[in-house]
């Protein structure tokens, strides 16, 4: 497992994602809180969060109080004006540093496409070896929209110079949590 994580981290960082790992959800929440504060998330420059098992219940209420500007009501307008989008991803791919999710719900796509920063949460045990393994769990035969994300948005269309952050997020922060039990997608 930790071998998968190391490979995942190496690959993801190689494509400019920022990867953090925490043992517990408490630690991860603390990180998230300080991250949102450091980024100056406020009612003017907000954050939107698409629901997941991690940010539910008391943790959610606590964060809401501590970060004014953090909203759990996802809409196109809210996402378009937010600085940070937060979502929980279903699977990771060690071979390529990729995050994969069932993105049939539009909220999940809005928070990971429109804001300039995307914070992606993932359980450590959700990292699998390769695309084939993930497609056994997230089956295109059943799901209408599957998204795979590998690093932030990029382009090399002008003089082949790699530039991060064209239409999608310019930063991808991946928070991997060891004790995060995800409900099977």
């Amino acid at each position, binding site marked *: 497992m930790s071998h998968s994580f190391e490979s995942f981290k190496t690959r993801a960082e190689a494509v400019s994602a920022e990867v953090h790992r925490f043992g517990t959800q408490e630690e991860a929440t603390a990180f998230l809180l300080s991250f949102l504060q450091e980024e100056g998330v406020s009612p003017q420059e907000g954050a939107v969060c698409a629901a997941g098992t991690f940010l539910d219940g008391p943790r959610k209420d606590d964060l809401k109080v501590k970060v004014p500007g953090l909203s759990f009501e996802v809409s196109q307008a809210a996402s378009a004006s937010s600085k940070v989008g937060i979502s929980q991803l279903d699977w990771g791919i060690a071979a390529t540093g990729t995050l994969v999710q069932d993105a049939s719900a539009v909220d999940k796509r809005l928070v990971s496409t429109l804001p300039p920063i995307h914070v992606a949460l993932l359980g450590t045990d959700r990292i699998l070896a390769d695309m084939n393994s993930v497609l056994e769990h997230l089956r295109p035969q059943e799901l209408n*929209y599957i998204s795979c994300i590998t690093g932030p948005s990029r382009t090399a269309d002008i003089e*082949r110079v790699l*530039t991060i*952050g064209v239409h999608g997020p310019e930063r991808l922060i991946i928070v991997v949590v060891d004790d995060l039990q995800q409900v099977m997608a």
Partner: protein
Amino acid sequence: MTTQFKDSIETALHNPNLTGALGRFSEAYRVSRAKAYEGIDFETVRDEIVAAKADASSRFEELAQQFKQNAEARGAKVFRTSDPEQVKQYILDLAREQGVQRVVKSKSMASEEIHLNKAFEKAGIEVDETDLGEWIIQLAHQTPSHMVMPAIHMTKEEVATVFSQEVEEGQMPDIPKLVKFARAKLRPKFLQADMGITGANIAVAESGTLVIVTNEGNARLVSTLPRIHVAIVGIEKLVAQVKDITPILTALPRSATGQLLTSYVSMISGQVPNTDGSPKQLHIILMDNHRSDMAKDPMFKEALQCIRCATCLNVCPVFRLVGGHVFGKTYTGGIGTILTAWFDELKKADDIQGLCIQCGTCVPMCPGKIDIPKLILELRRRIVVEKGQSMGMKAIYAVVNNRRLFHSMLRVAAVTQKPFKQGRFIRHLPLFLSDMTEFRSLPAVAPRPLRDTIKEIEQPKSPEKVAFYAGCLIDFCYPEMGESLVKILNKAGIEVIFPDEQTCCGAPARYNGAYEVAGQNARDNLKALLATDVKHVVSACPTCTVALKHDFIETFKSLGESDAMAQAEELSAKAIDFATLVKKLVDEGRLTLKEGETLEKITYHDSCHLKRTLKASQPPRDLLQQAGHELSEMYECDTCCGMAGSYSLKLPEISAPILERKLKFIKETGATKVVMDCPGCVMQIRGGLDKEGSPIHAEHTVETLANRFK
């Protein structure tokens, strides 16, 4: 060739931004591609791709029906048509019905193939490309020059000018700022659009899934924000099963951009909610436009295995000089030539098919295992069949097909060339022919051909004989190469016989699409070479060896002639190139190199046919090193020298810079000699070095080794 076409080549060659950008890219590309494939077995991956795509193209109709059924069961509407006009009509009708005013597009080559944007503009509907490169091209009113990087021909200064003129004044040529500007300007367009148009990289029949890859994230926005999603998909994107996705996703990003995976991959299999919760309309257009005709053509079917990675552009020595615009409007490079001939019309490919120098560099690197040079030759053949050969060409072939006449003309040339000859080179030719000597000196026709001089060599009588197939260049320009070959084989106790009836190998005719002529050449040679009982037919010209080994058979196949096939196969089994034969004799202990020699530093140039068709890059290197030479490899040792038979006569403006590059890398090694196995390459490289007055000597391996055996 039309003057318009020649002009477009001129323009491209005189655009230093273009040639500089493409040249640098093609060098960096090879490195990043190789790195991306570390730990991956490319051959296995492409076998899987070919299996999936070949299966699909043999049953498009069935898969298209299946796709339609499955996608519609999941809420999509699937429209199938073979006619590009109907695609446009469908979309325009839909737009009208739904009150669409603004459209955003992510990259779709199928939409470019049918000129969809023009149709929107005519209908008064605002349409914006959102892929950065495509947007730049749209604003600049140009067409893409590369399948993956549409604006690679433009500098940041040009982009800044286009943005300033077309969008907002005052943009500076600073790439991050230009990208930010594009983000800011396109964002409201995504948010306001009523319709989003995408293409798809893969369409899976069993699940009705579209797979869309992007790096910028624009396809995600285009398929998420507007209330209507239209995907235009060529039926060659179909595969049967979900499991067919992975090999394509393994190869496409690695081959296209040297990435392990693109930033985003979306797999869309059915209706999803809109941002306001209403169900999104999903329309999928499966477009044929001659693809199923192609699937029925036994030769061109394989071109449907293309995954549009553009490797064949990136590694092509011609593409990197002239870029995409010379090739046409939508699909560029070698594969673009083939697709244009089918999706547009054969006629449109008439000029551009001539750009392929037949070097074969793209073949081992294509994830779809498409033999582009072979297919381009076939196009050439069909074009000749359709519109006939020009009078001039006909006259030439009439001569080539009459060995006696041809050979006596060459003998006459040995005399008439005198006014232009200095030493062993022709340095000037009169008037229009001067293009031929502008960038390299041409070899003079030898005073006496090999077919005469070889008879004067005293050979040991031996029961073991090989037949020597000289080819025109060695026979008439470089007889000394043939004499060296005889000398070496004699040392192994082998007697070399020279069947006098041998004639041109037919390559010049074949590479110009004159298959009848090539077929006649093949028959004459079969008769001459199979008349004697020999184990091997050796040749020191790789193009000739390839003709004997493969092309005779292929030519007969294309012509549908089977009567001489058995003989062609017999000859194919006997044909062998000089270096491979000699290496074998050395390994068997029948030839021994002199020991303890320390010879000059050399560099080795791989001839296209020897390396990629005959796969003999190692034997000559081993022999030269065993002989005592220090081998200093040049950069891109296996890149074409620009000769390629009559190519250098037809397109000297392309041949010359390819040669120039080759000479540069030769000089950089510091070697005093460049060795190769092809008399054509010797003619090109020796001629180029002579023209420059370089002291470096170019020669055939057979010459370098002539006196090195005990």
